[in-house]
């Protein structure tokens, strides 16, 4: 049976060189005084959240200024105090221009009064109260999904383990690493609260292997907590996708949600925000973001207010002198969206800004590689973490065969980009799968 599973061993990802070691012992840079903040009225899934303020209003730091009231709740809060000077369209990390509440920072950082009251221990709160607090604080998945966190804790009957995902498998990003090092107490507190909220017996923090100092530090820290273990996982992409992570750590599979396997997976940064919310601190108005990539002169990790414009951080990090044109990405190079301008907003879901060299001063274009015909080598099939057959989906997309695409279950694709990465013929396979999904949905 072992031989069989070795023959068919699939879906554990591929090692991708990360180029982020130089960020591991970098100090966190605080960048907290932007002149304006732009709070996008979106939770990434749905645009056009209801604004609770209008132009001219004075808002305090932490004041709720927008929400989504249907189906899944999402709340937006002001990250500075000041006057609302406009609600205009700005570039969002989705690549679209969306309505943002623009607040002029008065630099007095006046807090909402009710938030100033003392905190309480999670043991004094019921699960429901914790979930409500998480919900009201506008905590979303900070690993990049932007999905409202409270949803995972609404129904927790079968949950037995909470996994904190600190794997950070995308190249160039070291945000979670920094949080684990600098905000360790909040990470553990957050995990404890989450375990309490879900009534889960065990807590796990997963990090990549070959990070010995961090691992030792966390193991030592974990000794003060009950039932929390630190687990190392292979340095592979997309190990940070919860499906692959659970496959690796627990040898379990699930169809729809990790909860089917009795597990909730949250990002380590999310745990920090949960801890902050329960302690009665501020709602989610800060986040940590990595600025890195071959085009960056001084790669750094910043702590910023939600709504800061990316160009302010890029001005601090600077570009290398030999760069003529930059491929600017909100997120990592594998799944992030290419931004047409550096004026995009650092919303809750932006964990990194990656700058790749599109063109150097002497005209070289390192990202452009000649595409060759597909030789059906099946690298994409062998490596797909979802177990799909990208090459067949691509062929079906080219012929517009919606039914075949359906049979190939293209909708299970999370667009992790691994098929394009491994393709020796440099075919944009992932893009073809996106096309296939459009074909399947009726050519749109």
């Amino acid at each position, binding site marked *: 049976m072992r031989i*069989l599973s070795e*023959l*068919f061993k*699939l*879906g554990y990802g*591929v090692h*991708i060189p990360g180029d982020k070691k130089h960020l591991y012992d970098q100090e966190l840079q605080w960048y907290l005084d932007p002149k304006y903040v732009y709070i996008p009225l979106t939770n990434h899934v749905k645009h056009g959240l209801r604004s609770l303020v209008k132009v001219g209003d004075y808002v305090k730091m932490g004041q709720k200024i927008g929400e989504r009231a249907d189906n899944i709740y999402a709340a937006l809060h002001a990250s500075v105090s000041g006057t609302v000077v406009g609600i205009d369209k700005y570039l969002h990390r989705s690549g679209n221009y969306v309505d943002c509440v623009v607040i002029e920072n008065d630099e007095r950082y006046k807090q909402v009064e009710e938030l100033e009251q003392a905190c309480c221990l999670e043991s004094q709160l019921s699960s429901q109260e914790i979930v409500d607090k998480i919900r009201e604080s506008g905590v979303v998945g900070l690993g990049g999904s932007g999905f409202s966190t409270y949803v995972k804790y609404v129904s927790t009957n079968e949950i037995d383990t909470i996994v904190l995902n600190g794997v950070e498998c995308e*190249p160039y990003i070291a945000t979670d690493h920094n949080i684990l090092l600098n905000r360790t107490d909040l990470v553990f507190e957050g995990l404890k609260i989450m375990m309490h909220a879900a009534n889960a017996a065990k807590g796990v923090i997963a990090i990549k292997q070959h990070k010995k100092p961090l691992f030792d530090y966390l193991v030592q820290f974990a000794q003060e907590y009950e039932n929390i273990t630190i687990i190392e996982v292979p340095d592979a992409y997309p190990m940070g996708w919860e499906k692959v992570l659970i496959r690796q750590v627990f040898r*379990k*599979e699930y169809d729809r949600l990790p909860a089917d396997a009795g597990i909730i997976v949250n990002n380590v940064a999310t745990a920090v925000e949960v801890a902050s919310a329960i302690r009665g601190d501020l709602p989610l108005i800060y986040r940590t973001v990595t600025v890195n990539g071959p085009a960056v002169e001084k790669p750094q990790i910043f702590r910023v207010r939600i709504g800061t414009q990316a160009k302010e951080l890029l001005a601090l990090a600077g*570009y290398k002198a030999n*760069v*003529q*044109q*930059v*491929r*600017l*990405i909100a997120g990592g*190079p*594998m*799944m*992030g*969206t*290419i*931004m*047409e301008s*550096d004026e995009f907003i650092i919303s809750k879901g932006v964990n990194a800004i990656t700058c*790749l060299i*599109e063109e150097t001063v002497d005209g070289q274009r390192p990202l452009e*590689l000649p595409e*060759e*015909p*597909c*030789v*059906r*080598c*099946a*690298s994409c*099939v*062998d490596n797909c973490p*979802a*177990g*799909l*057959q990208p090459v*067949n989906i691509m062929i079906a997309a080219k012929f517009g065969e919606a039914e075949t695409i359906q*049979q*190939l*279950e293209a909708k*299970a694709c999370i*667009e992790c*980009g*691994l098929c*394009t*990465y491994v*393709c*020796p*013929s*440099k075919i944009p396979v*992932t893009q073809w799968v*996106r096309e296939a999904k459009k074909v399947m949905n009726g050519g749109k």
Partner: protein
Amino acid sequence: MKFTKRGNAPSMTAPHTTKRMMNDIIACMLILSIIAIGTQWYLGGSEAGIQAGLLIVTAMVTALVTEAILLLVKGEKQPLTKLFRTYSIIPGLMLVLIVPVGTPMWVVAVGTIVAIVAGKFVYGGLGKNIFNPALVGRIFITVAFGGLLTTTLAGAIDGVSAATPLTHLASLQNIGTQSQIVEQYGMVNLLLGLYPTALGEGASIAIILMGIYLMIRKTIDWRIPVMMVGTVFLMTYMIGIENNMGLWYPLYHVMTGGLLFGAIFMATDLVTTPVSRSGRFIFAIGAGVLTVTLRIVGGMPEGVAWAILAMNAFTPLIDHFTMGKIRFNAISTKMLAVIATTATVVVAMTLYLGTSAKTAKVDAQAKELKRQEMIKVKAEKQVQVLNQVADGDTITYEVQTKGFSGNFIVYVTITTTTNTIAKVEVLEHKESAGYGKDVIESDFMQNFNEQTIDDVNVDTVSGATITSDAIIKAVNKAISTIETE
């Protein structure tokens, strides 16, 4: 700073390229070509070595010229750049490495053209073909000019194709003792590829090393060669056990007949194999079973080529069958069905082939015994006493016997008082010089003198077995005549 306006994630790609994979294969083919020239030189002298070199150059030139013409016909804008991006040299080199050294150059050229035009171009070029192009070319020339594919050079002294290990094995009905089968070539020679076979198929050790290199570089999927060779090994091992043959038997099957070359370089051809791992599992095991089947009941040295081509034909079907998402959590019923079916086929075919080989061997042995019996009877009829003349103590028999070049007369004189042979003479014969004639004119005839007729002990002369045997038979006939009187 300028920013890229449009583009799609991901923005990173692995350093691995198709070009690198193809160059890996080309490098392996070129190394094998050099080994082939060396091997042929060692086996057949400079002439054979040069002939091998010429064949390889013919294949490479024909492949490039054919592709260039096709590119021009297609109206390609940059034919020269494109020429080295279609990797047509690979089918050319593969084809020449699986033909024997005696193949005429024009046959190799025709095979290469067929490989590239009918094996690749008509399907739409690189990545679109259904069958392995080199195998298409090889099978075409086998069918069209089979008689010309000899393992020895045209105009060589004996002019007959030397037996390859598998034709030798087939001539023994696939069953025999180690000395009958292996010692014909020698174990070391079999390992080193120093025996008559196709140009590039013999160098087992080199091919295995290249295979490991390609597997590490992920140019080929290790599963296909391992499973295909494994299937052949397992099946022939079981067949060997059934027929009282040792471990050398499966090794002989694995090392010879181009199995390693086929499994490592041709069954792993990316374009013509299934894309899913379960599909490749079916493909590789199917090719293994077909190879053994064709060798044992088909008696075809090209079993590997046909097996891979047949599985190529099944590839679209296998792909269709294994289409869809993999469920990691459970072995699906489909997968269980595949494993069960494959196992059943392997076991059933092994039992069938083992038994049928045994039956064939028994039949052949019975036939051979009968044939020898008939020859003996026939030969005895041809030996007869024509005259006998008594002269005092001696009787001289005039015995007709059958030599290499027809009948001749032997005079056998026996002394009756002592029951010994006085002398044996041959007066007229047509036996050829250098063989039978020399025996008759040599001391051989004196060997009979003074031997007691109850116990005549003379050995045949090697190199002239038939003539000396004919004389011995004549003497025995005379003796048996005197004893009956």
